[in-house]
């Protein structure tokens, strides 16, 4: 398989071109944003966090196909999940992209493995992890408020 085919799999193109979670969220109580200065990816997350759960999540901003696909996939997998589960998923996803080892995603999150090809393009890892880092910051922000 050609490298670009490995990176730009059908599923990535589909997620990046038809993001269903794009837009603002009326009930959002946490807003967090992040930027990849070098490439211009800019993502804002709008979250409704309550009872230690992500009740709703939307995103705005713009970025490359990897960044948008990764963000859209993330929103699909974290909505209606507990913060404990989400934190675990964030850790797992980031490890999958940054570890030298071949990390497999659990069955429920198998689709995220489509982004594994990014590992072969080190410069693009930051595109795939941007929104996950923002989500991590958003959760920390929420937890600080709760204390």
């Amino acid at each position: 398989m050609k490298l670009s085919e490995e990176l730009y799999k059908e599923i990535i193109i589909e997620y990046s071109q038809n993001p269903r979670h794009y837009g603002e969220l009326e009930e959002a109580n946490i807003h967090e944003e992040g930027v990849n200065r070098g490439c211009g990816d800019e993502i804002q997350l709008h979250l409704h966090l309550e009872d230690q759960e992500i009740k709703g999540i939307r995103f705005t901003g713009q970025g490359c196909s990897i960044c948008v696909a990764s963000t859209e996939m993330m929103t699909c997998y974290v909505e209606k999940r507990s913060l404990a589960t989400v934190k675990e998923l964030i850790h797992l996803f980031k490890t999958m992209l940054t570890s030298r080892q071949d990390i497999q995603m659990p069955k429920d999150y198998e689709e995220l493995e489509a982004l594994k090809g990014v590992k072969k393009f080190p410069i693009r890892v930051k595109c795939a992890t941007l929104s996950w880092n923002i989500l991590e910051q958003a959760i920390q922000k929420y937890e600080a408020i709760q204390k």
Partner: protein
Amino acid sequence: MLNYKEIKKDFPILQTNMNGKPLVYLDSAASSQKPQRVIDAFSDFYRCRNANIHRGAYRLSYEATDLFELTREKVKEFLNAKEPEEIIFTRNTTESINLVAYSYAMKFLKEGDEILVSEMEHHSNLVPWMMVAEKKGAKLKHIPLTDDYQLDYERIPEVLSERTKIISIAHMSNALGTIHDLKKISDYAKQVNAVFVVDGAQGASHLPVDVQEIGCDFYALSAHKMLGPTGVGVLYGRRELLEKMDPFLGGGSMIFSVWKDGFKPGPLPNKFEAGTPDVAGVVAFAVALEYLKQIGLENIHNHEVALLEYAIPKLKEIPGIKLYGTNDLSKRGGIISFLLEGVHPHDIGTILDEEGIAIRAGHHCCEPLMRKLQIPGTARASLYLYNGFEDIDALVEGIQKAVKIFKVEEKIRKAS
């Protein structure tokens, strides 16, 4: 007609492969490749001539000093400056512009004064002026763009005033390739007695430069965009102004005399050359200048325009492409900035990379320009003397691959 096929042979890196394909280097606006003779001059210096300059009481140091000063003489000729003392070696264009900002503007600008730039400047010709403006209470004003990506010269009187003390404009835009009419801007500068600074990072490598004919007070350039090594820059400054300015950096070499409680700066150009410079880099730069002179800057520019004339109609046939740059090729250098409908420039860059094609993707250090154009950035192919028509064909083919992968045609069909 420039024999680019022969020229290509002089550049060892252009004989190499990238991702299993012959390297097609289309990022010379970021940094040019180096011919073998420049690489040789660099390593020969370290093998046979290495010594510090202006210090040693021995033959090797004299020889190194001679070679270093010979480059100054060559730069003087290249820019048609009046005297070698008007040539200051720096690290790059950015440092050269900062030198003017700190040593001239910080000293002479007053509250309420104005600095005039354009809407398509590189950050290096913006941020130093922003820093000065903030410190001195001065104001930054911008010459607007026309719809054809040129400076709107007719609107200069709207932003020019008796308060304009500095006008700083690029010779050629690194993001769009627009070549500015420096003579016209110089005339405006003279009308209000403003100091005229030219950011020549892109200009000096692609166009003949005559600082006296332009009538500029400062001209900044980088050797690494002109076939020379990285870490070497030049600031041309008119003697009268350089004499009035304070030193930029203090330390060795820039002094005439030092006492316990003070110092007297040295004469030009030493006053602005503190510390040991990149001697090997400067010496190798002389060889790059010789190479450029031998080919001829006029010929290089004409070759790039011929490549543009070949490329533009081919690129326009690609579905979903949008080109950014003036249609008037007499006012444009070898820069092709473009976007593909619904495809981020970084994705284009990655797909081309796999084909061995090196382009740049992003805002090209011109964020205000990108905001003005309401785009996140562009994909940019930049041409130079070693590029040929086959490189354009490879580029077009590579973009077609991106069109296919991102189903651009399907998207356009759906949208219409």
